[in-house]
């Protein structure tokens, strides 16, 4: 017999989804993180921008095409990557705002930063939206990338 648990979206249930997301992130379960997101979930890591000669690559797109590779690469470069959630607030519309620190010790190149075995810990603000199906359908995050670069010993802005 299959038991189906029907949960309606509320501030509490939306927050629970996001708490599970960070638990899976801490466990480096990128597939599990993605499974908590809708198929077409939006993704924006605002500080991510790589300026080329003719165009700027940004961390904007979809969870499955931009987010998942970013998370996978981050975990590869920082094998002990972890997070600490400091606050989580939500509403019945499915908005969830999270203050969290992300930290890790660099083992592989990350962007333009060569590995020097240094550790970073940087405050992040995440804004999630959880849909009525209790799947995350949008993730936006803000942090200070200069803080990460400097902690890792990279002093060039680009």
């Amino acid at each position, binding site marked *: 017999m299959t038991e189906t648990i029907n949960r309606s979206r509320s501030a509490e249930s939306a927050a629970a989804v996001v708490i599970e997301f960070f638990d899976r992130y801490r466990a480096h379960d990128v597939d599990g993180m993605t499974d908590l997101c809708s198929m077409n979930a939006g993704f924006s890591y*605002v500080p991510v921008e790589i300026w080329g000669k003719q165009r700027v690559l940004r961390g904007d797109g979809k969870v499955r095409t931009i987010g998942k590779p970013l998370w996978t690469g981050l975990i590869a470069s920082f094998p002990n990557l972890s997070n600490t959630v400091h606050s989580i607030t939500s509403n019945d519309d499915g908005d969830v705002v999270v203050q969290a620190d992300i930290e890790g010790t660099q083992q592989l190149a990350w962007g333009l930063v060569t590995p020097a075995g240094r550790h970073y810990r940087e405050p992040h603000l995440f804004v999630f939206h959880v849909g009525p199906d209790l799947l995350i359908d949008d993730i936006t995050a803000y942090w200070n990338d200069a803080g990460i*670069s400097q902690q890792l010993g990279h002093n*060039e802005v680009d």
Partner: protein
Amino acid sequence: MTTPTQTVETFLDAFARRDVDAAMALVDSQVAVTVHPFGLYDKGADVLRTVLADLVRAFPDLMITVSRVIATGDVVTALFKVEGTQSADYAGAINQEKHLDIDQAWRFVVADGLITNVAAYWCQAQLYRRLAVKRYDEIGQLT
């Protein structure tokens, strides 16, 4: 009785008009102020006033475009873009008259119609990139 969202929207409207006094009228005297890109963790209305005034002074044509205001209980999170043309040194970046456009998120806590806590998030790398700063170790005094 104003809602937390109304308080924050009024604050942001005043900030967008570069009216620092009007913005600060919505702020508790003991407000906790965190500006992560500056490594600033302090308390008091004068601290926040300085953060706002420095931005308005350095970017006299400052424009604030709010994209979202999200209320989650007494916490209100505002996502907005800050734009302007630099005309004075700012955050250790000498004035090279560059244009700034940077997306920011500010998380407010409101109690009894006043902002009691504000935490600001933006990427200082993006800010320095736009202001033509090349190296972090060549930046002057932050804030």
